[in-house]
């Protein structure tokens, strides 16, 4: 029996297992960075971790603030530019990349641009960033969905998954054969894509989650693997690593922000400063 873990820790650790030793990995911010740091420390010491800003082969020592964070490491091996980072991916030198999801359809196509009408949006999301390029050309893409949603039809088609399913992606001739999303990780479970139809199915369910909780989020009749497994609880070594590397990630953004502000206020008080109360008066 391992020690108790937070849901965020479970997600990070599940994500990290998608990285194999010797792979070239493009890390996104947040969960994937911590996953990358964990993988490099525990399972994949020869992996080359990269950021699209052109920071190549680094060992994260603290969590990244963004994808150009050279403060997160003590040096790195190669400084290139964004253009080359993408053409490097285009040429097949990136094995795995990680992308966050705003909306996703059953074939793993993504929207990270807007909710509602594009020209009159209800929510304006960040946009493509590197997403559309990376999922096009990385050998495989790992998707993470925390605040996003499953939809029948995307409000905006930002990044290509398996298009209309089946062999549509390969047949289009636009992408390397066999590329595309390999997994979608959510707070409820792990989804993978059927070899033939490319429709997503539930492959793993997280401990304590009921199947109906998963189905509730999904507007179509979700397929479930006949070999559905429960996500393995993390080991002590994995939990310890994540908690020491990124305790704020372990806690989750909301709790961490609250505690951080409380700490800053206490410090200001102790030094006789007014902190934020000064602004209010």
């Amino acid at each position, binding site marked *: *029996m391992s020690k*108790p*873990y*937070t*849901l965020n820790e*479970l997600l990070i650790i599940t994500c990290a297992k998608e990285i194999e*030793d*010797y792979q*070239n990995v493009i890390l996104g911010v947040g969960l994937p960075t911590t996953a990358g740091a964990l993988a490099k420390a525990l399972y994949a010491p*020869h*992996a*080359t971790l990269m950021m699209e800003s052109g*920071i*190549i*082969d680094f060992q994260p*020592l*603290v*969590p990244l603030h963004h994808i150009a964070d*050279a*403060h*997160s*490491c*003590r*040096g*790195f*091996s*190669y*400084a*290139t530019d964004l*253009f*080359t980072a993408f*053409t490097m991916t*285009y*040429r097949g*030198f990136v094995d795995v990349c990680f992308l966050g999801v705003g909306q996703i359809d059953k074939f793993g196509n993504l929207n990270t641009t807007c909710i509602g009408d594009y020209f009159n949006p209800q929510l304006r999301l960040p946009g493509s960033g590197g997403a559309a390029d990376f999922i096009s050309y990385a050998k495989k893409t790992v998707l993470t969905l925390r605040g996003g949603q499953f939809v029948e039809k995307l409000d905006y088609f930002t990044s290509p998954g398996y298009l209309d399913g089946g062999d549509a992606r390969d047949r289009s001739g636009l992408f390397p054969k066999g590329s595309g999303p390999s997994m979608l990780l959510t707070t409820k479970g792990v989804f993978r894509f059927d070899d033939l139809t490319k429709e997503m199915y539930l492959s793993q369910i997280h*401990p*304590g989650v009921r199947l109906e909780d998963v189905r509730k989020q999904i507007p179509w009749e979700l397929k479930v693997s006949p070999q559905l497994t429960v996500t393995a*609880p993390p080991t002590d070594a994995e939990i310890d690593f994540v*908690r*020491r*590397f*990124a*305790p*704020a990630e*372990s*806690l*989750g953004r909301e*709790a*961490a922000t609250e*505690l*951080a502000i409380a*700490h800053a206020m*206490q*410090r200001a008080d102790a030094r006789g400063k007014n902190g934020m109360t000064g602004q209010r008066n």
Partner: protein
Amino acid sequence: MAQPNDNKVMSAKEAVARFVHDGDALIIGNYTVGTCAELVFEICRQGRKHFTLYSQSGILDVDVLVNAGCVDRLVTTYVMRSGGKKGGGAVERALQAGSLELEDYTNFNYNARLMAGMHGFTFIPVLEGVMATDLFRKRGFMGEDKYRVIPCPYTGKQVLTVPAANPDVCIVHVQRADRFGNAQYWGAMGSVAAAALCSKRIIVSCEEIVEHDVVQSSPHLTIIPAFRVDAVVQIPWGAHPTEVLGYYNQDSFFYGFFRQFNTTADAAKAWMDEWVYGCPDREAYLDHYASRFGTGMLDKLRAKAFYSAPANYGAAFTSVWDETGRNRLLGLTLAEIEQKMAERGLLNE
């Protein structure tokens, strides 16, 4: 395709035996200075044949390979003449003998082919002035595919293009590398990085192999990342008689000595027998040099240090925990954070 982050250090003999094959498209990565002389010599010793050789600018390196009979086809922009009007050198002799096919480009157009290859494009637009010249009109073994003209989709203007180059193997000499293959080079950048990065396999020779942390503290000097490199060979004086910035100057005497021999086939053969085939490796070559001319000749060429100012790659901290064991952001110890997790019901058994 590149190898993983393992130790790739080996001898020139092993690197050439494993990664340079008969019939390869071979590219010399260096341009005008610091050429990979010892890798070139080793390829000659191993008797490789039928290369399509790419070189931005043919100097001693190209002539030695052509003298050795390794090259069927040459793609270049510039060919060194060894003896003025007297005898041009190996390339001229091979052209006269009909044993070498040549494709001539401009420096820019040649380099553009490498850039396209490096970035995975199938072709690239280039500067169109050459359309008025025989560079455009006279086609060698590439025929129609030497240059093609297309309309620009935005302006309708005629645009000159060249096809991407993706040679099978690049040989390149740099100042230093780590054992994984991160290759660091400074000075005249030429087309060195593009030549390496457009190639399928890469052999790096270097003046010295350094610890990985030296590379990590100077990543902007790295021109080839480890994951692209197949072999790393440490060869001090590996570019002699050409020069390596920070290590040694050009050996003008010896370069002239080579050029003198290179004016006729017989003399060139004698030079090759003595300096390439007669020396099993670079150490033997240097021993031979010292025995013929004395070590003082080389000592005079050694660079005096002129170090670049160090750049600061430091951050405020490299751990989220401060010196008292408290998280910098939350002001809490690990035990206190775990307690907060429990209080908030975040922990799962």
